């Protein structure tokens, strides 16, 4: 892969009049946005045929910064809106840029059903273990014992493993990386964008201001080092016991399969309907 200078990516894909972003110093969203834009650029996808969809939260502000059609919707609902866009015009490629609270808490039901249907959409999921925009409340992803403003003594709930959830619900492609995994991240997004059906790439992304500060991880680099420490490649994890995996987060490609997508299924359904009604042979 040839890596273009960042300014070329910026010039081509960002809305200059929308900058600067709302992101805090040390935030990881900008990096993941860059990976996504690089993947689009590398694949030579048509900028005018892609729609970015999002809900509410820091990462959901991304469609405002990129020069594409974009629908910045309500909290948690991005994938339901995406269902309408894709079904009404299957020629459009839909990217949903989501946060962990947005996707897995308030949007959890839309997430699992969009995956179950195998909706043709690529989800880029920023997982920073917290509600960054509203000031650091615990999320459905916050590791047990870590602090947020709504669990100041340390979270007492079990977190979701979003990647495993997506695999179980039936996604065609699921990968998880930390922001540190630059090339793997870009390659996974490229793969996801080329596949039919539901594809999801999750990134462990640093939020030093709302999350790190409360958990003795005050800066972006400290959080990235922490991710390096707690992540285990999936190939290695296979040979590890549950005890050894305690407190670790598995990264890598979780699934890569090719089940028929919602758009294809609906196309076949329309054919079946016309045949059953005697409208077509």
């Amino acid at each position, binding site marked *: 892969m040839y890596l273009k200078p960042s300014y070329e990516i910026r010039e081509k894909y960002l809305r200059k009049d929308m900058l600067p972003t709302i992101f805090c110093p040390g935030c990881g969203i900008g990096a993941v946005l860059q990976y996504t834009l690089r993947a689009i650029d590398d694949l030579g996808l048509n900028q005018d045929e892609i729609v970015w969809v999002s809900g509410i939260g820091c990462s959901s502000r991304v469609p405002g910064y990129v*020069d594409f059609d974009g629908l910045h*919707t309500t909290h948690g609902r991005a994938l*339901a809106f995406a269902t*309408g866009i894709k*079904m*009404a*015009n299957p020629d459009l490629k839909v990217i949903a840029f989501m946060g962990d609270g947005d996707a897995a808490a308030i949007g959890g*039901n839309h997430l699992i059903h969009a995956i179950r249907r195998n909706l043709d959409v690529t989800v880029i999921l920023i997982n920073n273990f917290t509600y960054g925009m509203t000031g650091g409340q615990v999320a459905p992803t916050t590791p047990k014992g870590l602090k947020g403003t709504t669990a100041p003594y340390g979270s007492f709930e079990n977190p979701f493993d979003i990647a495993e959830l997506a695999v179980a619900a039936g996604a065609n492609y699921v990968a998880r990386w930390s922001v540190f995994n630059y090339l793997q991240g870009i390659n996974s997004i490229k793969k996801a964008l080329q596949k039919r059906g539901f594809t999801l790439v999750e990134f462990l992304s640093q939020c030093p201001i709302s999350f790190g500060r409360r958990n003795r991880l005050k800066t972006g680099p400290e959080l990235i080092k922490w991710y390096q420490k707690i992540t285990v490649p999936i190939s290695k994890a296979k040979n590890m016991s549950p005890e050894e995996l305690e407190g670790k987060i598995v990264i890598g490609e979780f699934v890569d399969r090719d089940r028929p997508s919602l758009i294809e299924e609906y196309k076949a*359904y329309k054919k079946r*309907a016309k045949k059953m009604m005697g409208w077509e042979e």
Partner: protein
Amino acid sequence: MRYPFPVGAADFIQGDEAIARAAILAGCRFYAGYPITPASEIFEAMSLYMPLVDGVSIQMEDEIGSIAAVIGASWAGAKAMTATSGPGFSLMMENLGYAVMTETPLVLVNVQRSGPSTGQPTLAAQGDVMQAIWGTHGDHSLIVLTPATVQEAFDMTIRAFNLAEKYRTPVILLTDAEVGHMRERVYAPNPDELELVYRKLPVNEEEAKYPFGDVHGDLVPPMPIFGKGYRTYVTGLTHDERGRPKTVEAEVHEKLIKRIVAKIENNKKDIVDYETYELDDAEIVLISFGIVARSAMRAVKELRKEGIKAGLLKLNVVWPFDFELIEKIAENAERMYVAEMNLGQLYHLVKEGANGKAEVGLISRIGGEVHTPGEIVERIKNDLR
């Protein structure tokens, strides 16, 4: 174009079925819904017809997702609709506000049943009037149509799409379990007899730059739908004419919201629709809408037979509300009555409209049964005694 139901002909069908057929004739090609009594028949009819006319009908995980998908489809260029009843209507309030804020054309049918909560799922009510008008949070305006017959349910569905597209706004078709489940004769016109409206699209790059600006001076911006190279950014945040978020500038918010409200309110003359019966010399004026208007009509006839000068104003649109019309009628009336299946909702609008020029009474009925004409007659005669 082949249709999976009779066109240019009459048929004997339910209100729900009529709404589905009319939507397809109006050009609706996207439907998303969630099962709920007494609106499920709309969804079932859409599921039967949509694949045959190359449209989409999809069952979402809930009503929040249903209206979300409809808004997404509308931005992808489709005429789109969803239908529900009370509990689902409550869930839709969130994204109804998003549709108002982003000026997304769509039709939302509410086949009203008794509430609050699960209430009486199979029985009719008119308890969602205020929710239809004011249910979503924040200042706004939208359009609410109220059919009284199955034919009106059909005709008003087509009108709902036309108004939604013309004014780039969500339109609510507020009907009820009686109209929805009742079977009546309905004439479905040939498609070429219909006048259909499709949203204004930008005619050049310059226009496309202002998806939320009054570029034509008619308060309704052209809609740069997705996939045409416009690179439109749509957000529920307060935004300027280009669609850029401007969340702390008072003047941007005021300008946006006042335009969204004005495009409906300033076009009241075009949108408002009503019928009158024996109103010219009426001393007693009944005001009603939906299924109850049919009882009210009969009550007026009975009262006239007994020498009481009664008349009817039947509202086909309850928002925008023609306060001036009510005041004009109040000037010539002795007494006005609002008959509705709730504890008084339209009543408050009428009272405001009457502006003290006539006394306004409420003839209320709840519990799932429509007022009988006799009940209305008795109440009025009692008051006159």
